C-alpha cells in the first residue's frame, strides 16, 4: 500500500514538473522610451541602449539588484591588489558566445582595449579613467586576466557590472554576446527583437537551462499614455518605471499589477547660485552664501507635503546625496530636515533677517525675493516649486517660479550663471559615491552651486575635496565609508543642495509574469531576466 502511494506521488511530481517545464518560456513584451542608437555595449550612453546591454551582455561580475552585493558571473573569483590599481579575474571555462565562438581571457583584454580607446569616447570607460597613463590588460592564462590602472580606482570591482564582454574573434563583432539574449531582429522606429541565447551558461537551482523566456520584444514607444494603454490591454508585460499619477490610476483598476519597491536612488533637489561672478545683486549673493539662510529655507520646506501631494505618497523626504535605498553608503545617522517655519525664522534672525509686515528683509532692508528656475518638461518639478513658493511665503519670502525649456535652463545654470535658485533632479544609477566625484569636487563642472573653482572658496568645500580624494584613493571599504559619511554630514550641515525627495521605484508587472520581484535599483523589474517566464506563454503565441 505504501509503495502504491509512493508510486502515485512520484507520478504526480513528474506530471507537475513536466507541466511547469511546458508552462515556462514565452515572449516578454515591454517598451523602450527611445530608439537605441547602437548595440555596441562599449558605446552605450542612454537608457534604451542600457536596456539592450543588460539583456544581452555577459559581465564578469554582477551587482545583485536585490541584495546589492557583488556576485560572480563570467568570472568565478576576483582579487583587488596593488592598493586598488590591479584587479585579477579567474574566468569560467567552457563558455561560448551566442555565435559559437569560445570565451577566453583574450576577449576580456579585447573589451578593455575597446573600452579605454580614447577615439570611442566610451561613457562606461570614463568610470575607469583614474589618472594619466594607459590601462594595461595582461592575459595570464586562457582563464586568468589581470587589469592594471595607472592610479587606484575606487570600487573597481563593482564597475565591471557595466562592462559587457565582447568577442575578440567573432566575425559578428558586438552582435556576438554572452548574455541571456541576443539581438535577432531590429526594425528602426518600431522594435528590437531579442532571442534566447542557446549558449547561455547559467542554470537555475533545479538545473533548468536559463533563460526561461524564449524571447523579448522591445517596442520603441516614447508616449507613456500609449504604453499604459497597451499594458492595460495585456499587450505589454511590464512597465519598468511608472509616474505616481499613472501608478495610482493603474492601482485603482488592478491593484495586483502595480509594485512600489520603496525609495529609489534618484533625488530631487534645489540649490542657490553661489557663483561669485553671477549677474545677480551682491546682497542676494550674500543671502545665498549664508549657511543660516540655506538651512532656514530647508527647514521651511514641507517635504512630507511634497511627497504626499506631488508624488501621491510614492516618495520619501530626502536627506542628502545618498538615498536610504543605498544600504551600504547611506549615513543612517542623518534624518531629513524637520519642517519647522518658526525654527526657520529663528535661523534667519541669526543671519540678520527680520520679518516686517509679513515680508522678510535682510539687514540692508532688502525684501527677500528670489526666483526658482526649473525645466518645462517636468510637471512634478513645477508642482514642487509652486508648493515651495507657498511654504516660503509663510516665512515672508517671495518666490517666483520660472519654467524654462531645457536648453535655456542649461545655458542659464551651466554657462551664464544667470539664475538665483534652481530645482532639478539627479538620476543615480550607481551605488558607489565615487561616481559623484564630478559633483562634489570644488573644481568639478557639476559642482552646480559654484562650479569650476580654481581653489575651494570655502573651508567646508576644501574639506569635502579632501574627503572625496581620500575615498577615491583607497581600496579599503571601511575607510571609504567613513570618508563618505563625513561628506554627507558636511553637506547636511551646509545645504549647498537642499535635498527634497527620493522618488519611489514604481513599476507595473503583469500577473502572468512569473518570478518578477521589482527592486529599487535599475533595471527594477527585469534585473533577474533569466529567471522570468510567462505563465500563459501559449496564449500570446496563439493570438
Amino acid at each position, binding site marked *: 500500500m505504501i509503495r502504491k502511494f509512493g508510486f502515485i506521488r512520484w507520478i504526480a511530481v513528474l506530471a507537475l514538473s513536466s507541466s511547469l517545464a511546458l508552462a515556462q518560456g514565452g515572449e516578454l513584451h515591454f517598451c523602450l522610451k527611445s530608439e537605441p542608437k547602437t548595440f555596441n555595449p562599449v558605446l552605450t550612453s542612454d537608457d534604451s541602449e542600457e536596456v539592450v546591454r543588460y539583456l544581452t551582455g555577459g559581465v564578469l561580475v554582477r551587482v545583485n539588484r536585490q541584495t546589492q552585493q557583488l556576485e560572480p558571473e563570467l568570472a568565478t573569483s576576483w582579487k583587488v591588489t596593488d592598493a586598488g590599481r590591479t584587479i585579477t579575474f579567474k574566468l569560467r571555462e567552457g563558455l561560448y558566445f551566442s555565435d559559437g565562438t569560445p570565451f577566453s581571457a583574450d576577449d576580456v583584454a579585447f573589451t578593455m582595449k575597446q573600452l579605454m580607446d580614447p577615439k570611442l569616447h566610451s561613457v562606461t570607460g570614463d568610470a575607469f579613467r583614474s589618472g594619466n597613463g594607459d590601462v594595461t590588460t595582461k592575459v595570464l592564462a586562457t582563464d586568468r586576466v589581470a587589469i592594471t590602472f595607472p592610479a587606484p580606482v575606487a570600487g573597481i570591482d563593482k564597475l565591471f557590472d557595466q562592462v559587457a564582454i565582447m568577442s575578440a574573434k567573432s566575425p559578428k563583432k558586438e552582435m556576438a554576446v554572452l548574455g541571456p539574449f541576443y539581438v535577432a531582429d531590429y526594425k528602426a522606429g518600431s522594435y528590437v527583437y531579442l532571442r534566447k541565447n542557446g549558449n547561455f551558461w547559467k542554470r537555475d537551482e533545479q538545473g533548468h537551462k536559463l533563460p526561461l523566456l524564449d524571447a523579448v520584444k522591445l517596442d520603441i514607444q516614447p508616449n507613456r*499614455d500609449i504604453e499604459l494603454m497597451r499594458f492595460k490591454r495585456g499587450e505589454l508585460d511590464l512597465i519598468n518605471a511608472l509616474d505616481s499619477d499613472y501608478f495610482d490610476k493603474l492601482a485603482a483598476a488592478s491593484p495586483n499589477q502595480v509594485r512600489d519597491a520603496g525609495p529609489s536612488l534618484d533625488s530631487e533637489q534645489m540649490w542657490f547660485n553661489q557663483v561669485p561672478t553671477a549677474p545677480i545683486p551682491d546682497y542676494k549673493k550674500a543671502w545665498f552664501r549664508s549657511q543660516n539662510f540655506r538651512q532656514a529655507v530647508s527647514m521651511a520646506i514641507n517635504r512630507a507635503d511634497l511627497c504626499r501631494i506631488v508624488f501621491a505618497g510614492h516618495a520619501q523626504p530626502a536627506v542628502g546625496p545618498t538615498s536610504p535605498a543605498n544600504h551600504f553608503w547611506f549615513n543612517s545617522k542623518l534624518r531629513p530636515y524637520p519642517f519647522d517655519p518658526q525654527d526657520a525664522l529663528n535661523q534667519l534672525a541669526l543671519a540678520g533677517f527680520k520679518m516686517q509686515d509679513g515680508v522678510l528683509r535682510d539687514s540692508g532692508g532688502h525684501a527677500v525675493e528670489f526666483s526658482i528656475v526649473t525645466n518645462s518638461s517636468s510637471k512634478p518639478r513645477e508642482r514642487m516649486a509652486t508648493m515651495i513658493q507657498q511654504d516660503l511665503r509663510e516665512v515672508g519670502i517671495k518666490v517666483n517660479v*520660472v519654467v524654462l525649456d531645457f536648453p535655456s535652463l542649461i545655458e542659464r545654470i551651466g554657462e551664464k550663471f*544667470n539664475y538665483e535658485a534652481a530645482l532639478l533632479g539627479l538620476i543615480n544609477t550607481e551605488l558607489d559615491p565615487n561616481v559623484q566625484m564630478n559633483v562634489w569636487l570644488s573644481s568639478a563642472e557639476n559642482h552646480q552651486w559654484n562650479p569650476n573653482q580654481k581653489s575651494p572658496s570655502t573651508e567646508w568645500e576644501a574639506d569635502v575635496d579632501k574627503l572625496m580624494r581620500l575615498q577615491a584613493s583607497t581600496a579599503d571599504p571601511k575607510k571609504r565609508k567613513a570618508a563618505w559619511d563625513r561628506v554627507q554630514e558636511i553637506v547636511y550641515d551646509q545645504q549647498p543642495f537642499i535635498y527634497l525627495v527620493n522618488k519611489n521605484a514604481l513599476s507595473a508587472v503583469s500577473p502572468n509574469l512569473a518570478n518578477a520581484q521589482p527592486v529599487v535599483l535599475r533595471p527594477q523589474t527585469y534585473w533577474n531576466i533569466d529567471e522570468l517566464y510567462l505563465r500563459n506563454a501559449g496564449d500570446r503565441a496563439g493570438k
Partner: protein
Amino acid sequence: MKRIRQIACVVLLAVAVMSLAAELFAPANYATQFRDELPNAGPSKLHWLGTDDLGRDRFSRVLYGTRVSLLLAPTAALLSTLLAAFIGTLAGYRGGAWEKVAMAGADLFLSLPWLFLLLMVRAMLPLNVSAFTSVAVTFLLLGLLGWAASARVVCSGARAIRNSDFVLLARASGVSRVRLLMRHVMPNLKPVLLAQFWISIPIFILSEANLGILGLGVAEPLPSWGSLLRELESFANFSNEYWRLVPLVLLVITVTSFQLILSRDEVTA
C-alpha cells in the same frame, strides 16, 4: 443667424462678467493650496469643480484664468491690429518700395517658427518678475509677433482704396497726404481692421494655451486657460473625471462665440 449671434454675445458677456467679478463668485483664492484635503478631489459643496493637483479650488482657478485670458488676448489683438494697421496701410497706400519692404518683412515674420521664437524671447527675459508681469509679457510678445498676417490683408485693402476713384478725386482736389490717409483711407479700412481684431483674439487665446501646455505660459500660481488645459495632457488623468474638461469647454464656447460674432463683421467688411 442673427439669433445665434445674439446668443454668442450673451454667452461672451456672461463669461466676461463671471471672470471680471471672480472675487464675488470664487469660493477661494486661486493660489490657496488646500493641502489637508485631497488634491485632485472630485466636485463637492466646497469645491464645485473639485481641486487640482495641488489642492487648489478648480472653479476659482477657472474664473481667474478666464479673466487673464479674456482680458489679455484682446489687448494683444489690439496691439497686433494697430501694428498691422500702421504697417499695412503705409505699405498699401505708398506702394512701390515701401510695399515691397513691408511685405517682405511680413513674409519673414510669417515664415518664422513663432513658437520657437516665443520660447527664445521668453527665455531671455528677467527671471524675477511677478506672475502678472509674466502673463502681460507673454501676451505682449504674442501681440508683437502676430501682426504679419493681418498686415498683408490691410495692405491689400489699402492698395485697393489707393487706386479708387474717390481717392483720385480727393488727391486732385489738393487734399494733403495725411488728411487723405486719416479721413479717406483709414475709415474705409475700419471693417477690415475690425475683422482682423476679432480673428486675432481666439488665435492669441489658443497661442497662450499652446504655450501653457508646454509649461511656458503664465507663471505659477496665476492661472490661465493654457495652464488649466495642461491638466488634460494625459488622458489617464481625466478618464471618468469629466469636470476636468470645463476649461476646455469654456475655451471652445468662447472661441466659437468670437467666430460667430466675427461672421457679422466679415459680411460688413
